[in-house]
């Protein structure tokens, strides 16, 4: 299998701020890879370096087997990109934009374009300025998929779409008949979408890679414990795998990573009178990872 994206020790500093830190990631060709991370986690910086727009401070990035700093036009032609704003020239008609894109991409597949557009109600004679946000998203997706890219990067593509447009977008993305084994990189904050679409889940936090596995395996990494501590919780930095913690009605609710059932024993040995283990869903597991280093009222106690 070909490697689609490969970074080694990729680091980017802007002055004192480290946007990406020793980031090593490998994505194989094929499948839908969801990336989640708080705002400022380094997602955009990662894409900019992969696409060769920004130079790394250190480390390396490769896209479709080629060094990102020296991407040939042929390689660039195999990459699709859809951003959250769905920016298109407002004065052009849908038909004109499509014709223009088509001339850029030798692999252009008109039937894919037509199938995707079928999910939306886009009149080819309509100017972009007159299209709704959902229709623009549809037009953008239709063009991106029709260019038959090997990699398609979707940066929060459903942001601000209504329920109907969002559903059309996901259906068109997942069910349009395609020949090419496109690798889709899907950035989103919508856990419901991620649960539906993702084969792999990549979690980024503060410029670092925290997870790269299937969503199910990721959820299995996180466990949720409720303990009744007579003398308060042990110091957080001593709790193995500690992610987050809340106190509810006097009980301590703790989320930890990569701990087995023996974590219950650990809590008992450290002052818990009773211990119960709860199930977690994807959203809770992701939130636990992303809020780990955020200040909460609890963390000051």
């Amino acid at each position, binding site marked *: 299998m070909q490697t689609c994206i490969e970074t080694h020790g990729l680091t980017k500093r802007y002055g004192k701020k480290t946007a990406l830190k020793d980031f090593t990631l490998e994505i194989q060709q094929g*499948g839908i890879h969801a990336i989640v991370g708080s705002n400022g986690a380094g997602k955009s910086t990662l894409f900019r370096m992969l696409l060769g727009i920004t130079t790394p401070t250190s480390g390396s990035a490769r896209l479709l087997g080629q060094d990102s700093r020296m991407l040939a036009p042929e390689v660039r032609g195999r990459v699709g990109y859809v951003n959250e704003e769905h920016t298109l020239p407002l004065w052009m008609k849908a038909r004109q934009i499509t014709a223009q894109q088509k001339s850029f991409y030798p692999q252009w597949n008109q039937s894919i374009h037509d199938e995707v557009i079928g999910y939306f109600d886009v009149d080819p004679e309509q100017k972009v300025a007159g299209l709704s946000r959902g229709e623009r998203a549809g037009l953008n997706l239709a063009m991106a998929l029709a260019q038959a890219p090997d990699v398609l990067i979707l940066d929060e593509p459903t942001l601000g779409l209504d329920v109907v447009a969002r559903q059309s977008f996901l*259906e068109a993305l*997942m*069910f349009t008949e395609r020949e090419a084994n496109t690798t889709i990189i899907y950035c989103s904050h919508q*856990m419901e979408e991620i*649960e*539906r679409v993702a084969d792999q889940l990549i979690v980024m936090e503060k410029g670092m890679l925290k997870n790269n596995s299937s969503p199910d395996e990721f*959820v299995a990494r996180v466990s949720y414990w409720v303990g009744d501590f007579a003398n308060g919780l042990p110091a957080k930095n001593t709790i193995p795998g500690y992610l987050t913690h809340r106190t509810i009605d006097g009980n301590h609710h703790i989320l930890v990573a990569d701990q087995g059932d023996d974590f219950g024993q650990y809590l008992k040995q450290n002052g818990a009178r009773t211990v119960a283990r709860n199930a977690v*869903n*994807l959203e809770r597991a992701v939130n636990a990872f992303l809020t780990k280093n955020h200040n909460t009222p609890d963390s000051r106690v």
Partner: protein
Amino acid sequence: MTGTINIQIVTGDARPIFKQIVDGIRMEIATGNLPQGAKLPSVRGLAMQLMINANTVAKAYGELTAQGLVEPRQGLGLFVSEPRQLLSEEEQKKRLTTAVNAFVNEVAYLEFEAGDVLTEVEKALTKLQGANSASDKD
């Protein structure tokens, strides 16, 4: 003809979607809604019905095949198998214990005598067997 599958999936659940599909189809088979020999929807078809990634459906179908509940026929798709047990006796006991514990947890706070509860369970199980034997005939 392809059997219609009446299952729902929910996001935000602690059970992964593929597990919800496995459980849902297993129930459809147990209740006779999917009789022996019925054809399952295609991977793509069920994925579209549930609006999820087709790979998730494929994973669930793989699990159902591994459990022996469905079997592939070359080039035709997946079909509900003849009922047979693939789980070891030990595994079956383990699953029964888990199911009983969950059930007891649900009914413990209700004001029924143990006898009433048992009668209801027996009724439900009889109904299930009835459904199965009815589907065996066609």
